[in-house]
């Protein structure tokens, strides 16, 4: 068995091609219910992400934003409802298969492989084993400050540098959709702007479904937003002109 087998089948690329002609939303969640044990966390989330757009999921802590991303990626498989990718039902599919269909995850807390080097962290995310060197070079060109740290253990990096590696992993995975969870969390203000710039660059290549507590940042990056409260989407719309003072927003974020 080759490493490619463990990394997933290359047939997935053909699947992506076959469904790339699909005209509807890239990602659809329809009436998704998810649980942690007996705790009912998502109570019927419905949302869509189209090709090329950045969508923000906003809401208070603990309302189900992260779980929505996990449900989309089948890390917390929904017990009810549907998750569709390019119109195809993917509910219950293994997460690594979704990854091979172009769905990437930049998780909360970065989730570095701390004992692996920066280059190895990025290398794990490259799906085509023959492209590892080329993709790594691309990631280092995109995030030049990582170049001098490429052989350092990821666990030894600063929070901002780790976030760069996490975004780079999403970038090199040939992803059409990136699920980004709290990218600015725990970072110094000057680093947050660097991360925002990086996400702006990534959004040129992939659609983003972004969970972000930093409201101005979320509105700045996103084209549309969904406001989540108690496991449901309670508001949605374009981010144009939306401010934290908006009454709809105030009601759920204050």
């Amino acid at each position, binding site marked *: *068995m080759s*490493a490619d*087998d463990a*990394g997933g089948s290359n047939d997935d690329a053909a699947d992506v091609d076959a469904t790339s002609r699909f005209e509807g939303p890239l990602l659809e969640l329809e009436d998704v219910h998810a649980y942690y044990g007996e705790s009912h966390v998502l109570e019927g989330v419905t949302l869509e992400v189209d090709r090329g757009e950045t969508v923000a999921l906003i809401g208070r802590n603990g309302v189900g934003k992260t779980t929505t991303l996990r449900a989309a990626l089948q890390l917390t498989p929904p017990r009810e409802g549907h998750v569709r990718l390019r119109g195809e039902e993917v509910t219950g599919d293994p997460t690594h298969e979704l990854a091979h269909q172009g769905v990437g995850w930049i998780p909360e807390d970065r989730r570095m*492989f*701390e004992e692996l080097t920066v280059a190895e962290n990025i*290398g794990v995310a490259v799906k085509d084993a023959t492209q590892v060197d080329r993709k790594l070079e691309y990631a280092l060109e995109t995030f030049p400050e990582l170049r001098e740290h490429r052989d350092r253990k990821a666990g030894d990096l600063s929070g901002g540098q780790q976030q760069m590696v996490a975004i780079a992993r999403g970038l090199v*995975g040939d992803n059409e959709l990136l699920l980004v969870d709290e990218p600015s969390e725990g970072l110094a203000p000057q680093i947050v702007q660097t991360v925002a710039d990086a996400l702006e660059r990534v959004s040129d290549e992939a659609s983003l479904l972004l969970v972000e507590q930093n409201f101005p940042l979320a509105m700045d990056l996103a084209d549309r937003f969904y406001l989540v409260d108690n496991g449901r989407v309670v508001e949605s719309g374009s981010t144009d002109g939306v401010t934290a003072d908006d009454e709809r927003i105030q009601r759920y974020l204050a």
Partner: protein
Amino acid sequence: MTVAISQFLVAFVDALAPVGADLVGQLPVAGIVADFVKFLSPSNLAGIVVDGLAKASVFALIAVGLTLIFGLMGVLNFAHGSFTIVGAYVAGLVMVVVLSGGGFGARIAWFFVAVVVAFAVLAALGAFIETQLIRPLYDRPPLYQILLTFGLTLVIDEIVRMIVDFYGLQPRSAWQEALGTRPTWFRENHDFLGLTVEGMDLFEIALGAVVVAAVWLFLTRTRYGLFIRAGSEDSEMAEALGVDVRRVFTVVFGIGAGLTGVAGALLMWDPSWGASVTVGADALLPAFVVVIVGGLGTFKGTVVAALIVGLADATMTWWFQNVFVTMSWLPEVVVFAILVLVLVVKPRGLYGVQEVGGH
């Protein structure tokens, strides 16, 4: 350094002479000092180091598979010792069936054939057990996996015992016919770098070093090894990046079980172990000590801990067999004392990130 210490101790004993040779002779401390001088003599120390390295090789061979499986999957495989028994008998069977005479080269060549066969058989058995028995338990608490692998130990040991009994072999003592297939050179002492060393010790050190190096290269130089190391740290993140972690689990369990085949083959040729049903428990206990002392699931820690435990075992064996009294179990007490010491002083082990019993 050791020469200087020896000279110091000799001078120290000489200095006591004026006090009265008879008195000194009657003091137990004087005897111990003399034994220390003997212990620290370069040739003796080198012999102990060689013996320790041979033991360390055996411990590392058994423990590396255990630590790979635990590191990636979090499964504490109590059946690991039983896999070693199967490996010893499979390798012994290959040797006994195919070997009729032959010189050093032929015996070594067939031994490596036996190693490959034992590896393949155990890897297949391990992959079967992982996919059919352990996989359904991943979502349950670790206790379920422990009970399952402990149950497997009882089943495998009894099956082997029945088969061995059926063919008229004594299950509790080493399979002499298999032991007899090793080259005569292994049973003899040889001059090596100015030392007198038993051939078997050299072979164990060489095989252990080659296997440990091969596993290390696999883990650090191959893409599959990268997936294993990533999955060992965070299997969910690895899965989200496209790694089929379940498949990697199966491969790692297969490799871990296969390595017990290699260890079993080596034990089959070592007269202090030999192919027997009891070799499983005998091998599993030091392997667990090595894995815990090194730090659960860390390859580097396992190798370092194997060296520490092997050298401590060899040192204590020398002291208790040559100086105090012949109590063959006392070195094992010291090995477990190391375990207790590490658990008290450094609960995560030498290189571990996860505390024993921690969550």
